[in-house]
């Protein structure tokens, strides 16, 4: 019948997609804990280090030759902005971790510039996480974490480490940069796990 206005429909959809305490933004704010590193593609590598020290490493060209995914996801920053329907291109961590022999339950993502963030390994699997190198069809800019960043959209966005260099797998949980500095160890936006003790 077309009685319900698109504006009303849009607002209800936004409410449904917004975790508690968040607001929708159409911008893409840049937040950083340090200087922006500039990494050449010739030097870029991604490394997975198992808890026993075994390493698997991919060059940029090797990453590009892997099957590419195109996740379209909502992202939620702990500073309360959310951005709907962000479009990325990258490689699923299911692919990158498929041949890694590990009994680890935890991972630490480590980045150029020294940033780290920790996650349960299961949060990186089953189609929930990617190493992405394009945003909105364009190469990922350095200010947003390019050449490549981790994308784990079901957790607050500080877990989606910019300038990703690799993953270290551990049998014990080791808090990363913001987790050590007072943010929540897990960071589920739907449970509003912002700060230590939340």
């Amino acid at each position, binding site marked *: 019948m077309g009685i319900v206005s698109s504006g009303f429909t849009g607002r209800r959809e936004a409410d449904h997609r917004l975790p508690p305490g968040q607001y929708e933004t159409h911008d893409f704010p*840049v*937040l*950083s*804990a*340090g*200087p922006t590193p500039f990494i050449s593609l010739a030097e870029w590598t991604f490394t997975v280090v198992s808890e026993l020290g075994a390493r698997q490493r991919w060059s940029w060209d090797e990453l590009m030759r892997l099957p590419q995914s195109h996740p379209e996801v909502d992202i939620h*920053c*702990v*500073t309360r902005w959310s951005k709907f329907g962000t479009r990325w291109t990258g490689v699923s961590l299911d692919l990158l971790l498929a041949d890694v022999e590990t009994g680890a339950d935890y991972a630490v993502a480590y980045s150029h510039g*020294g940033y780290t963030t920790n996650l349960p390994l299961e949060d990186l699997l089953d189609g929930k996480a990617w190493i992405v190198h394009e945003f909105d069809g364009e190469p990922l800019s350095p*200010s947003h974490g390019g050449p490549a960043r981790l994308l784990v959209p079901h957790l607050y966005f*500080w877990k989606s480490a910019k300038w990703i260099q690799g993953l270290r797998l551990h049998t014990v949980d080791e808090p990363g940069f*913001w987790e*050590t*500095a*007072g*943010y929540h160890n897990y960071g589920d936006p739907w449970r509003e796990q*912002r*700060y*230590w003790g939340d």
Partner: protein
Amino acid sequence: MTELDANSAAGPLTLLFGRDVTLAVGICAMCGTTGPLGETVMYGPAPGTVLRCPQCSNVLMTIVEAPDRLLATMPGLRLLSVPTGGTS
């Protein structure tokens, strides 16, 4: 950009210490550089304030502002000397 000039750290530092401590002198635990907090390199204040050594970029201090509390670390300071106004 989120890199701000040094004295932008004054606000979060004042919140934490209850007074202006930009003249407090810190020693970087990584490279030994000694200088006032007001001359460090600051990133933030969101998602948190990060003070870095102007020489080696080591993280000297972090301050996260939650609605009901401040969460602070000083992982890269070997010493912090805060003037009190008294005489030695």
